């Protein structure tokens, strides 16, 4: 069964013909070429595919493409403004919160969802919220610091620069 879906992705209207079984993540990666959203598991646990659908964090492997018909999707490719990183992306960079980078898009999308609902999360709240995002590289230590920094900057505070980083 083929169906044409129309949705908004990163602010632009798109249409595509998909099979009934096509997942949203497959539509994004294979048909729209948005390969920043990753697939790390087949049981909806790793969180590498987190995107926002109508402003809510969703694992794009748990949604059929047809279910996104008529909805608005934000992927990692739509987070920065031109060449300027979003404060949460900048915070990940400042805190060395990514190594291989594979889980990173999902982590950033989840972090944005957390901060939307809880603008000033504690370390514990960040760790508990990240239950749906696996990272094998960082031990989460710097991801937790990055999300705290991103939240602080989004609240209008100065970045704490806990690592004393210099620009490269």
């Amino acid at each position, binding site marked *: 069964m083929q169906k044409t879906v129309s949705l908004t992705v990163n602010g632009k209207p798109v249409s595509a013909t998909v*099979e009934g*079984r096509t997942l949203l993540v497959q539509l994004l*990666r294979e048909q729209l070429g*948005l*390969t*920043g*959203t*990753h*697939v*790390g*598991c*087949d*049981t909806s*646990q*790793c969180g*590498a595919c987190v995107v926002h659908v109508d402003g809510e964090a969703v694992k794009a492997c748990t949604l059929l493409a047809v279910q996104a018909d008529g909805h608005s999707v934000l*992927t*990692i*490719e739509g*987070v*920065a403004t031109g060449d300027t*990183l979003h404060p949460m*992306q900048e915070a*990940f*960079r*400042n805190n*060395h919160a*990514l*190594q*291989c*980078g*594979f889980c*990173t*898009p999902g982590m*950033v999308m989840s972090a944005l969802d957390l901060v939307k609902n809880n603008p000033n999360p504690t*370390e*514990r709240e*960040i*760790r*508990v919220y*990240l*239950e749906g*995002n*696996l*990272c*094998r*590289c*960082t*031990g*989460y*230590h*710097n*991801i*937790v610091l990055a999300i705290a920094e991103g939240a602080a900057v989004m609240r209008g505070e100065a970045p704490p620069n806990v*690592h*004393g*980083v*210099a*620009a*490269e």
Partner: protein
Amino acid sequence: MATIGTPVRRREDYRFLIGRGTYTDDINRPGQLYAYILRSPHARARITEIDTATAQAAPGVVAVYTGKDMAADGVGGLPCGWQIHSKDGSPMAEPPHPVLAIDSVRHVGDPVAVVIADTLAQARDAGELVSVDYVEEPAVVDPVEALKPGAPQVRDEAPGNLCYDWHLGDLAAVDAAIGKAARVVKLDLTNNRLVPNAMEPRAAIGEFNRATGEYTLYTTSQNPHVIRLLMGAFVLHIPEARLRVVAPDVGGGFGSKIYHYAEEAIVTWAAGKVNRPVKWTAERSESFMSDAHGRDHVTHVELALDGEAMFLALKVSTIANMGAYLSTFAPCIPTYLYGTLLAGTYTTPAIYVETKAVFTHTVPVDAYRGAGRPEATFLLERIVDLAADEIGIDPAELRRRNFIPATAFPYQTPVALQYDSGDYGATLELALKAADYQGFEARRRDALARGKLRGIGIATYIEACGIAPSAVVGSLGARAGLFESAAVRVHPTGSVSVLTGSHSHGQGHETTFSQIVADTLGIPMESIEIVHGDTAKIPYGMGTYGSRSLAVGGTAIVKAMDKVIAKGRKIAAHLLEAAEADVEFEDGKFTVAGTDRSKTLGEVALTAYVPHNFPHDELEPGLDETAFYDPKNFTFPSGAHIAEVEIDLETGQVAVVNFTASDDFGRIINPLIVEGQVHGGLAQGIGQALLEGCVYDKASGQLLTGSYNDYAMPRADDLPAFTLSTNVTLCTHNPLGVKGCGEAGAIGAPAAITNALVDALRPLGVHHLDMPATPEKLWRLIQQHRTPLAAE
């Protein structure tokens, strides 16, 4: 401005943060087809027939191939890169490893056939139509069971399932020391089987160019040149000049992406057959049953001590699970990367280790972060803690008493290695202070009042990184060299391309290597490009594993820069009309000593490529130098890790409340990256100690932990914030003084956590427990032993 030693933000982050990394599965080639690999559902079975006719006729299907098709085309088996010899001098059993199973399957997940179709969905649908007649046979998954008489046979070439029976050390000296010891402490332990679980599943795209006869393989590899060599020479018989291997951004590896896997050969060979690109991407459940696993040891250890609690001898007997086939470097892990580490940080004068490697009906086992060294450290630091427990001495004091003193380097161990530098005592004191070891007993009492058993555990470790020199590893059975290459290409305008045989899969080489080049050549990091991961661009490479990239690959870059500077000095001397000996190079400028006459590196480079005024009699044009570096020795990072845990008496739930790591990695180029490496290693080590364990059903041989539903990966709320520090002693035999930091966390943490758990449970009469210490295991232990606690 010097960048070495400063926390420079990573250059690679921007592309990953905007979703523009290029991982293998992100690549699509024109006309690409998709491969679905049919895998064995059985641990052991004979294949009596494979009927592919229905699948061949299914919509979109281009081809279906079996092992017999590949064999008929002359495709070879997957080679093993290390040959171990047994005690009696005989070579290890080395049974064939077909790319696709022929006649028999030997573990759940063993590849049986490949379906190639226009879409992945069509390939998968057609996979259901391939009919395989299996005759199931009894399987064995436990290595101890596999050695028993009458156990199911895994390989005809390995009677009794024994791959080899290896040993190292002086048995007579060890037995004599044990015979006269004041105390002999004994322990039986296991080192749990782990699944590496890089977040990026493996993927491979094969491509064939009919016009040139050239094959290209895009693959998730830590070492593309090694794959080119193994696949080209042994499996598909394609010469290097007609085989390009590209490993683009790699999403983690931890060892599991070192090896040459069947799927790489399948897509490359099939691309030639169907004359279109063929792509395969693992699903996570495929990763669980096809990526090489790690660890899986069963060990008996004895430590002999004199009346002053000095170690006299260590005797170790290990059974190591190899799985059903020998993965690329599997045989060296429980031997030369394990037995040689058993001196640890201690002066133990006599050591003997024997390892029986065993075939079972399980996924092959190979190097996983640490690879042999975590297993060595776990047993050593457990037996040392048990000795402290039996003697009634502070475990920190027992370690201090037996440390190799800082004045004793270079130090020759009784198990072949010569450590070049270290200061184990100072590193331990640093960790003890940071962890407030002195104040622990008060915290233990406070915890008990809250219904928690609190414990503290120490582990010290020694690591051997940058495995080398090639001549030595060759004599120990390696079928490869272990050097690294680098080319430093100064372009006409003074920008620099560095072509390195190391290959980052998350380690940040583009940043660390740029820092070294920026500081040495005196140019900004923006002018430097690090190129890796492509056999068509890089002269040669042995890749990234064993924490070798900075110590070996970084040194090769330094050696190539030395040549650039030496040639640049000659060119500058010509331009400045000075004697070469009078020209100095500093901060990117060649200067005639004692004058202000100078030429920048850029000016010299331009002269090298526009050689109008050039010493043609003496030099060739250009400024592009290559170096191959074969180290003189391993490097020896070391450290002291201290874990503090609380166990909930009612639920058995563990909280890691503090984790302190003090490490000696030699000179640190980028502290931000080094800390990140330690954090990640600690998470994997804590995961091994508390959560992770790959479990097979003993009766059926089925893999019970085949997804993230069943295999417990560490999550953010399982882990604490880590407290890190470093105590630097420089490596004495490489110019950077660096030692490597990639595996330290995974080596120290399992023993530190387990020692802390045993410390917490000791009031209950518990003296050892095996990993992973799950809440269920701890709850049962607490229930069994509760009476003594209640009586206190």
